[in-house]
């Protein structure tokens, strides 16, 4: 998609325009070459010119602002180096500086973080976040990582084999996932169930594989898929379902799935706990306090409101 916008690949049909100016229009027969489009494309592997110094790389796009850009990206001391001697993070900064040297109207980022190892990834994501906020330049970013997308983008389009599945903010995608793919992408649990609408509103869901019966505020009947996010699932002792505040109404509002603890994975200060078919979240202290460990029984609790149903039509 970025290549089509940049003019490196010719789409079969459609229209690509910036404001009023069409860069590509299959009907009007418009197809500007890449050099006539005002884009700054940062390639996945950065595509720095290996036979040029950092300075010459940046100057290739436009010589006027080279010093300013080298300074801004903190690579002025690398100006005489060749790309081969740079680290991944440094290469990315050179690639960004080079793309901006042309003063583009649109910034295109192709998997900007995928060439980095996990260690530098988080740091560079933060840097990029700040940079994009400062630039206030329309930016198209392609990534396979929802965390990158959520951290860097205002709006996220989910594209699966060429078709747009959903377009919205990160919150919208999580709150109302359009299909199973979006649930998986955003890191949610996906359960298969058979739904039965209740006369009182909402529905009763019989989970497959005998995992239990839960409820949702949404109405549905027949085969459905159920999405719940780990951060909405609390983990408690299996014999602790009789909550002090359980007054009947609370019981209805709360779903409980009991299972054995399959795995415990530390994740950004929290612990991811697999309970039966679900992955929930807790803190290490809480798990220690409850005496929960791998192999033991536990219950995963989440509210009916957080039990999202998505049509199984996809």
């Amino acid at each position: 998609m970025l290549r089509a916008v940049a003019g490196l690949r010719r789409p079969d049909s459609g229209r690509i325009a910036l404001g009023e100016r069409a860069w590509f229009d299959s009907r009007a027969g418009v197809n500007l070459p890449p050099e006539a489009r005002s884009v700054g494309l940062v390639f996945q592997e950065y595509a720095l010119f290996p036979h040029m110094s950092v300075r010459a790389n940046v100057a290739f796009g436009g010589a006027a602002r080279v010093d300013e850009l080298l300074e801004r990206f903190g690579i002025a001391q690398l100006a005489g180096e060749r790309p081969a001697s740079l680290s991944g993070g440094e290469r990315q900064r050179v690639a960004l500086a080079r793309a901006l040297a042309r003063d583009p109207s649109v910034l295109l980022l192709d998997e900007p973080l995928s060439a980095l190892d996990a260690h530098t990834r988080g740091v560079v994501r933060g840097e990029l976040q700040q940079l994009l906020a400062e630039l206030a330049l329309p930016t198209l970013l392609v990534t396979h990582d929802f965390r990158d997308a959520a951290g860097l983008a205002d709006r996220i389009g989910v594209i699966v084999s060429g078709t747009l599945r959903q377009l919205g903010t990160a919150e919208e995608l999580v709150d109302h996932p359009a299909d199973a793919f979006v649930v998986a992408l955003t890191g949610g649990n996906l359960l298969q169930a058979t739904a039965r609408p209740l006369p009182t509103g909402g529905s009763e869901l019989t989970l497959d594989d005998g995992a239990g019966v839960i409820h949702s505020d949404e109405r549905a009947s027949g085969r459905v898929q159920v999405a719940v996010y780990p951060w909405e699932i609390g983990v408690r002792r299996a014999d602790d379902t009789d909550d002090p505040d359980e007054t009947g109404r609370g019981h209805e509002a709360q779903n409980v799935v009991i299972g054995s603890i399959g795995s415990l994975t530390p994740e950004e200060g929290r612990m991811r706990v697999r309970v039966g078919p679900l992955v929930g979240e807790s803190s290490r202290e809480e798990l220690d306090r409850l005496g929960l460990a791998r192999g033991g029984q536990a219950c995963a609790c989440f509210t009916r409101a957080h039990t999202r149903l998505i049509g199984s039509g996809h």
Partner: protein
Amino acid sequence: MALFTQVPLGRVPSLLGDHVVLDALAVTARTTAVANLLIILFGTPTAYVLATRRFRGRSLVVTLVELPLVLPPAVAGIALLAAFGVAGLLGPGLNNAGIILPFSEWAVVLAVAYVASPFYVRQAISAFEAVDPSLTAAARTLGAGPVRTFWRISLPLATAGLVAGWVLAFARGVGEFGATIVFAGNVQGKTQTLTLAVYEELDSNFDVALSIGVLLVVLSAGVLLSYKMIVSWRDSTSPSPSPFGRLRSTSG
């Protein structure tokens, strides 16, 4: 080896002073220079187009370019004669324009260029193909047109491969015999190159022939050596494909 034991080495310099040898050397130098210039001038853009564009009939063009490689040189000579000879395909037209190619120094140039060009073009195609397409794409998005992209990105990054191909073409051109003798003849001072002089002197003055042999062996060994150096130089710089960049960064 036998070449060096048979010839009285001390007499080689004086034998090479023979006017037959000097004439042949002059013809070889002139025709090789012009032929190689033509090969690079026409071969480079041809190779670039064949390496970067996919079009109908591309493989046919590649086959035509490579044909002289497998064609017996004498057949190549006859083919050139059939094309440019007085009675040939293009002969009458050229004749009317006052150009008679066969048995002239230009005929030597054509024969050498025809036979040696595939060595350069083949190597040049793979050198251009080895340039990462995302680099040329990046140059385009940075505002460089196709011409600037070629001069600033493709050509510098392919240089080592181009030089390696040119060395092979040069060597093949110097050793050219069959096509030249058929198309250009063997006239001393006009179309007689060093290899043709070896053939001529074989009967009349065997020592002169041997001396030229020694000269050509030394020349060929030098060419082979420089080729090997270029190849190893290129391999050692493969992560950063420009040999110049590597040299500068280690010396500076």
